[in-house]
């Protein structure tokens, strides 16, 4: 319950923050993952750099066909943003599944992505949405695709001293159908599996399918085999079943007290089927 002693700073300016991070500071975003593990003494950063006062990291805006969300935008802000709900409903839906009211009030999209918990809700949608992350460090900025960003369990493309500053999300085709379906671990509320689906149809055929999966493997991933199987089909129940069955292809499933690897694999298929069915039915 009591963390180790640490130094604390709360810069209001991004540059200043990046400078402090460059000299070994640990970034604190919403703190929903970091603070609990600090309290259990599983983490003991010497210097915590609180990003919570950098106003310039908290925004949602639309620019030329993309939504831009500052890294410090909270799950609640995403969940309740009329802009996100209309222009990228999948992200709002995913945000509404995270944790609980209090966690959504504090937790941030940047913090969640940077933590790269293999069972977090956001990454499935971020994968399906093919977002990009703008990263910054004291030595400059760069943009990486979501696929390059999530590297492994709790491991991302972030270099020491580097943080996410922005998530860039393509505005959804208004005719697309989306859905995030999650099997909830009863104690923690984390996803046993979570599947985010985006479907675009044209002339009665699925022209584009995007499927992001969390909870199943060491990191969130795109189920490309499933996507391929669905694209070009009419999206019938049989088509969906076939695609859903392929959702776990090439992934070594996680196992824990709440779900064995085999069960998780099967549930990924079931929830992929559900997410795809809803998404297909919502696509116009």
């Amino acid at each position, binding site marked *: *319950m*009591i963390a*180790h*002693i640490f130094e604390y700073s709360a810069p209001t300016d991004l540059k200043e923050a990046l400078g402090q991070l460059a000299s070994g500071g640990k970034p604190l975003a919403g703190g929903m993952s970091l603070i609990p593990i600090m309290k*259990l*003494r599983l983490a003991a950063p010497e210097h915590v750099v609180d990003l919570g006062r950098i106003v310039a990291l908290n925004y949602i805006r639309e620019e030329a066909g993309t939504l831009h969300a500052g890294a410090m935008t909270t799950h609640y802000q995403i969940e309740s943003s009329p802009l996100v709900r209309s222009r990228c409903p999948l992200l709002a839906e995913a945000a509404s599944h995270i944790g609980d009211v209090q966690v959504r009030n504090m937790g941030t999209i940047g913090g969640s992505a940077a933590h790269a918990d293999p069972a977090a809700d956001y990454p499935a949608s971020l994968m399906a949405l093919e977002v990009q992350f703008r990263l910054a460090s004291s030595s400059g900025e760069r943009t990486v695709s979501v696929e390059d960003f999530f590297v492994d369990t709790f491991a991302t493309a972030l270099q020491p001293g580097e943080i996410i500053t922005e998530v860039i999300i393509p505005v959804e085709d208004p005719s697309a159908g989306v859905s995030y379906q999650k*099997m909830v*671990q*009863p*104690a*923690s509320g984390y996803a046993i599996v979570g599947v985010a689906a985006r479907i675009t149809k044209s002339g009665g055929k699925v022209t584009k399918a995007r499927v992001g999966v969390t909870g199943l493997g060491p990191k969130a991933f795109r189920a490309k085999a499933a996507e391929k199987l669905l694209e070009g089909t009419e999206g019938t129940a049989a088509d969906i079943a076939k695609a859903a069955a392929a959702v776990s292809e090439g992934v070594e499933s996680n196992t824990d*007290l*709440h*779900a*064995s690897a085999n*069960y998780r694999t*099967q*549930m990924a298929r*079931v929830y992929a089927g559900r997410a795809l069915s809803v998404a297909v039915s919502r696509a116009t």
Partner: protein
Amino acid sequence: MATTTITRTEPLVGKRIRRREDPRLITGTATYVEDIQIPGMHHACILRSPHAAARIRSITTQPALDMPGVVAVFTGADTQGIGPVPCGASLPGLRVPYHRILATDRVYFVGHAVAVVVATDKYIARDAIDLIEVDYEPLPAVADPEKAIAPGAPPVHPEWPDNVAFTFHQEGGDIDKAFAEADVVVKQRITSQRLIPTAMETRGVVAEWRPGEKSLTLRSSTQIPHLMRTLVAQMLSIPENRLRVITPEVGGGFGSKFNVYAEEALMGFIAMKIHKPVKWIESRRENFLCTIHGRGHVDYFELAAKRDGTMLGLKLKLIQDLGAYHQLLTPLIPTFSVLMMPGLYKFANIQADITGVFTNCVPTDAYRGAGRPEATHGIERMVDILAAELKMDPAEIRFKNFVQPDEFPYATPTGLSYDSGNYAAPLEKALAAVDYPHLLAEQAKAREAGKLMGIGISSYGEICAVGPSPAMPAGGWESATVKIEPTGKVTIMTGISPHGQGEETTFAQIAADELGVDIDDVLVIHGDTTVVQYGIGTFGSRGTAVGGSALYFALQDLKAKIKKFGAMLLDSDDILFANGQCICNKTGKSVTIAEVAGASYRAMKLPPDTEPGMVATRFWEPPNFTFPFGAHIVVTEVDKDTGDIAIKRYVAVDDIGKIINPLIVDGQIHGGVAQGLGQALWEQAVYDDNGQLITGELMDYALPRASRMPWIESSHTVTPSPVNPLGVKGVGEAGTIGCSPAVVNSVVNALQPFGIRHIDMPLTSEKIWKLVNAGGQA
């Protein structure tokens, strides 16, 4: 003296009255142990073993002692003279390991206390813990009771290599004859998994030593302040009358605080050593690791019956996971299961064998229901298994075997005498509530459509109002003192120690009715051994049934005294006491209770053979337990794809005798059902093979949440208990006991198309999914 016409006011007993405890609780002004601040208070933090079994080679404390702010570090070597942690149970041949308050040469479970740091600040105390070095030599451990009694298992206590703490045998009737006459015998292994009580407030102790007065005050989050005083005084070898135990607001107990733990004596020891007040608040992790767990049964049942469904006899081999030590009642809990074995049925013949087994785990002890949920789960499952075997309706087989209303008091083969009942009534009411024939038709349709719909019934009984003193190690009576102050205000001091059950309200209702005073003029005090006469405490659904009865009798004594003073003041022998006034039937003149009380304290004149003052105390010994009963019906639907269980309806009909406050009773039923449902569906304390508790936090131990609870349709039948003057039976544990078999029966019923006969709790989605997808092969 006023002359008044008396109109009878409506009684408060039986009314939905909002609780008088609540204003402080909803405004954040209640005082729990952690809220206590005493000038100069120090803080303790305990270092605990990460190993389930290990030898302690050495402990190095100096670096911790050197830390600024640390005032002391104590280890087992410093506390050898304190203790042991008491076991109140005595059974023939019981092996009782010496339970030191801090480990000395060896640790026996993960979480075993090894050292304690005392510092000026809780942050410093926590930091200093990391500076203590313990050199452990890990030893093989065993965490599963069946593995522990298998040959070659590592001994938990080297002095008892078979890991058996006791065996216990009980028989009633002629079990061999019953089985010989049976047409059918069904057998099943049924487990009742280890559970973690998880009161939202963890345990905590504040100890304060006043050297001048040579007195120690312990503020502890407990259900049993007086028993704690007696036992801790013994542990610390101090005179009992110089130890004061105060129970401030207690944030839930569910049995886990019906105990005396090492930390209570340890904090007392520290306060006496350092001459400063000291506070210890258990962390949630410690709560999971070191506060008692519940259940932990492996039961082998055999039920013998006639082909027409008449049940003849029941055999049980019960393996109880005790953990590494006996806490206060650890070995007794499974014996309650044996007492409860026959359930509501006319079994003439039973046989039970308990093996109490040591494991390298935290001790099990009383958790909501304490032995009765395990027994009820077993018998109610066995009845369903028999019904399936005989292709009988589960309701019909129950009706056929119930003890009948004209058979009370009913002597059971386990030696109990059931007080009163109409066991068919709640089941009939529950069946009507769900429209059983219609429900069965609906189920048939659902099955045709390939849906897995289940209907589950449990007809449970329980042993409450614990209990007559001969049945309890430390007495089963309860006490009450009622004082009418000179101004007419009424103060009740009860020996029970409620912590959420609402007796500050229900007792005030009883007193207000009996004395005819305004409920706001009644104050209920509990939980301070210096203020309140000795009492036993709150557990076993006894608060109102035993404590309330003591109160009732004290009130009768006072009423008699009031009438004596009234007669004197009104100068008449023809006196009526009603609505808080003594009235002369002849003249119509009256005196109020305040006037009577005032006169009794001024004592200008006293009635013959009457002492001044208006105080009555009763220590009431119940002649018997009470036996509440009821029927719960649960409708479920199982998702074939995921194994998820949806509870479509939850109907609870409970007969808890007379009801004092229906609002509070509803709350008790709901909360009880939630804990039963928790066991049925989600909760399990899981130790790995090495004795590590891997459900060591709320991240993995799944408590029921708001979104997962069904709506509970609660109603009652009322069969008063003849055992006590209030006619109450007790409600605290009913929901829990009735719930789990109804849920499991429902899910097993849903999976009947797959030939499923039994599923052990918790019914996790994965477990169900596997059964469905393996076509019933577990």
